């Protein structure tokens, strides 16, 4: 039947008792106060379509696009309705009935063909100075003309060299990416397993583990420093990091738009690329990519040739914060924990006066897909609390969606910023100087929102702040403020 996608979630739809409890947590309903903003309204729309009361039209698709997929409704539903599944099924039904909007069609075609995608972004980074105007202080750009982006919006620039161009495919632990062992942290920090020259010299010939790093697009093309931090921190812990060069977009933007065919093909391709590697774990540092590996790939590929591999890889998946805390044991073993705390206690670092980046007030934003999606919220906080000099300040409602949600912020920029304004206010109340989060998509949104509210806070990935604790000497050259750009780019970006 025509609405097969919806029919499979009929039981889920029927579970809803229309109590409306989702209204109390939906960031969109909070702003719009309209029933179609919230899960109950959209669910009833899907139900009406399923029962033949309304046809599936572009208007139907548009109503279903008004969702952040933050899953706050799912977490709060007294009947346990998986609205996320209903939404995806309804979006899939809409794509089948009316196709994708033209812009998405072009973008998804690009995303699903890694060569085209890479070529596109390669020319993008060369052309971006012509299209974007540099922000006077931040590493960020304003669009010079609309091009589908709101002109008040700042976007981070595409990296001149992508992460996977910058790094080798195999990064053994003896060769930290930045190759800077802070040798001042030496004698007094004798316990610091991974930092002292002694221990460095006696590093095991064979790494204690070998992991694959699935970078995701935003880390590969934009926030390359996050990727370097992941590799660096893992290397410091004696772990070899492989970055399979053929890896490509996780496909979730395609998946959440309802283009299941393309999403499935992309999932299968990534699974095949990683299935061959001899690895102990797959690491992600993007919440959405993480969900892809752990939840969506095994489900999407059910019954496919790659089903078994997808399940196996799903079990091997770890978010970087989770891996550091639960596998390496950031607080339990002397390894990382020892390294960090001894740095703080020795005074060696302090005496060099370069501990700057890891001191100060830090707050943490829970990415929806990490917190509710993967259930990871303790590990990042444990990392932050383990870093000496960091004064961790919990914000009110840290799990409230920042309003970014990928292409949602393109389609509904004003609404997205209204939602982000609550996050900005919560950040402001903490008095924090640094906002840490576990997902590059949230980071981009929060950076933009903070800029619009003229707030000075910087935004970092959890693993970057941790890396700074390892690298107290190099914060000034780390280029948080300064992008790695050529003279030509700097000229153009002026």
């Amino acid at each position, binding site marked *: 039947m025509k609405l097969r996608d919806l029919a499979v979630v009929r039981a889920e739809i029927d579970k809803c008792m229309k109590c*409306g409890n989702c209204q*109390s947590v939906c960031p969109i309903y909070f702003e719009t*106060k309209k029933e179609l903003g919230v899960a109950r309204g959209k669910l009833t729309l899907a139900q009406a379509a399923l029962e033949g009361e309304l046809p599936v039209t572009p208007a139907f698709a548009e109503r279903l696009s008004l969702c952040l997929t933050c899953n706050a409704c799912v977490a709060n539903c007294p009947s346990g309705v998986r609205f996320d599944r209903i939404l995806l099924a309804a979006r899939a039904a809409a794509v089948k009935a009316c196709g994708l909007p033209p812009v998405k069609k072009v973008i998804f075609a690009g995303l699903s063909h890694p060569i085209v995608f890479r070529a596109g972004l390669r020319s993008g980074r060369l052309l971006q100075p012509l299209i974007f105007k540099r922000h006077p202080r931040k590493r960020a750009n304003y669009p010079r003309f609309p091009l589908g982006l709101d002109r008040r919006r700042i976007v981070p620039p595409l990296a001149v060299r992508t992460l996977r161009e910058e790094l080798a495919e195999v990064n053994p632990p003896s060769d930290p990416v930045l190759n800077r062992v802070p040798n001042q942290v030496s004698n007094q920090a004798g316990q610091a397993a991974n930092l002292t020259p002694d221990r460095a010299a006696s590093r095991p010939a064979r790494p204690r583990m070998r992991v694959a790093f699935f970078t995701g697009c935003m880390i590969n093309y934009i926030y390359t420093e996050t990727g370097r931090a992941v590799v660096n921190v893992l290397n410091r812990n004696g772990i070899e990091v492989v970055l399979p060069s053929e890896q490509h977009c996780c496909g979730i933007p395609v998946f959440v738009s309802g283009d299941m065919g393309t999403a499935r093909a992309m999932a299968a391709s990534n699974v095949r690329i990683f299935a061959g590697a001899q690895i102990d774990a797959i690491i992600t540092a993007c919440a959405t990519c993480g969900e892809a590996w752990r939840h969506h790939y095994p489900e999407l590929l059910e019954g496919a040739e790659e089903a078994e591999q997808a399940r196996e890889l799903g079990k091997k998946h770890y978010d970087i914060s989770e891996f550091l805390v639960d596998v390496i044991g950031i607080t339990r073993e002397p390894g990382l924990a020892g390294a960090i705390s001894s740095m703080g206690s020795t005074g060696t670092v302090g005496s060099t006066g370069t501990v700057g980046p890891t001191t100060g007030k830090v707050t943490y934003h829970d990415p929806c897909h990490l917190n509710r999606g993967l259930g990871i919220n303790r590990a990042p906080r444990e990392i932050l609390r383990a870093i000496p000099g960091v004064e961790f300040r919990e914000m009110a409602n840290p799990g409230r969606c920042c309003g970014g949600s990928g292409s949602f912020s393109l389609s509904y920029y004003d609404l997205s910023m209204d939602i982000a304004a609550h996050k900005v206010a919560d950040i402001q109340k903490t008095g924090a100087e640094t906002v840490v989060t576990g997902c590059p998509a949230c980071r981009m949104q929060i950076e933009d929102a903070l800029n619009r509210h003229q707030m000075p806070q910087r935004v970092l990935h959890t693993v970057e702040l941790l890396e700074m604790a390892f690298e107290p000497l190099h914060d000034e050259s780390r280029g948080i403020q300064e992008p790695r750009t050529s003279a030509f780019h700097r000229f153009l970006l002026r």
Partner: protein
Amino acid sequence: MLSKAVVTELVSICGRERVLTEPEDLIGYSFDATAALPRRRPEAVVLPVSTEEVVQVVKLAGRRRIPIYPRGSGTNLSGGTIPLEGGIVLVTTMMNSILEVDAENLTATVQPGVIVQTLNDAVASYGLIYPPDPGTVATATMGGTVAECSGGLRGLKYGVTKHYVMGLEVVLADGNVLRAGGKTVKNVTGYDLVKLFTGSEGTLGIITGITVKLIPAPEHRRTMMAVFDDLDRAAKTISEIISHKVIPATLEILDRVTIQAVEEHARIGLPTEAEAILLIEVDGIREVVEKEAAVVLEVCRRQGAASIRAAETDAERDELWAARRAALPALAQLKPTMVLEDATVPRSKIPEMIRGLNDIASKYRLKIGTFGHAGDGNLHPTILTDVSDEEEMARVERAVDEIFTLALQLGGTLSGEHGIGMAKAKYLEQEFGPAGVEVMARIKHALDPLGLLNPGKIFPPAQGKILSQGEAGVKEQTPAAREGLG
């Protein structure tokens, strides 16, 4: 469909963004939280932001003879917001400002779209609370809870919405704005119009401003749970607690069907062989609370409770509350359709009521879970059924008839807190008698002579016909025909 001219006029009143006419948007206002009612789409939805806009919309509706259905968050359980005859749904969710918190006079004045919890959060910093505590406290609007006179979990000690509404601003059917009551504790000037509009279910006027009474927040509370193997002992415990001069803020009961459903759904370790669980919370001044808690525990022991727990921490309190919170959703999972009633009896009749409900369940071969506010006699017999099973639905209907008859026989009422709406309209006369219904009909006719405010609610369908006959068959006109009027 409304004519273009009407839509244009609505847009000129509220602006394009706050007038919805696309079917995809209208679907969202075709239902509320009431189970087993068919969806009915309105012809337009408006979301005014001011009393003036409400006045304009009401005047337009009057001129054009278009029915108008006020709606807050749409979380009611009586079908009260369903637009039976199409027309305009007027949503108050965007009128959501807290206009004033007057800590000196212990009042707050709000627009109708303010969420009950939001008001409570706002007055918390003054050390005050707004006590009415419906299950929908985090979603329901003040306007909706006043129009429905919502009750909740603290009714026994603190009363219900009508005990806290001191003043109202109401847009009448003719577009005039009425202000009644105010901030004074004492006020016997004229008829008590505030009480008249409280609980009027949107049939007499549209509430656009509300002044409520606040009270100091209780400084301390104790939460206890007692499990009983015998229903009569649980019921006896309820009356014994009160005859020992303890009035708990909360005194809730869960029957065996509900306990089993909750355990099935939430796995929180409830004793599934128990006949009843009582959840009891006392609050107030610390010393008093401790004393009262001791009395409650002693009564439970003396009545032979199989087990008793008292929460020592907030986390333990949450654990005890978990069972009660899960009751409704758990029951909802057992069968596709859940018919939730709120027939209410004097507290002393609770055991008879529960036994009667069990008899009705076995007589009609139905699964009925009963839970609710035992302390104030407000039970929620919940029939679990399947709306697609016609034969069973016929039995459900007969069972519901008997439940109401039973409640009235025991000196109770059809509805403790959900209101009549469309779901219980046909039983109205059974409680009120012809004279009572006649008085209400006259009030309705005096305030809404065209019958345009939330038509089809409270009054039984036959009564509705009589009401509109006085207006030269306005109701008989098709939507297209009524466009010609005005």
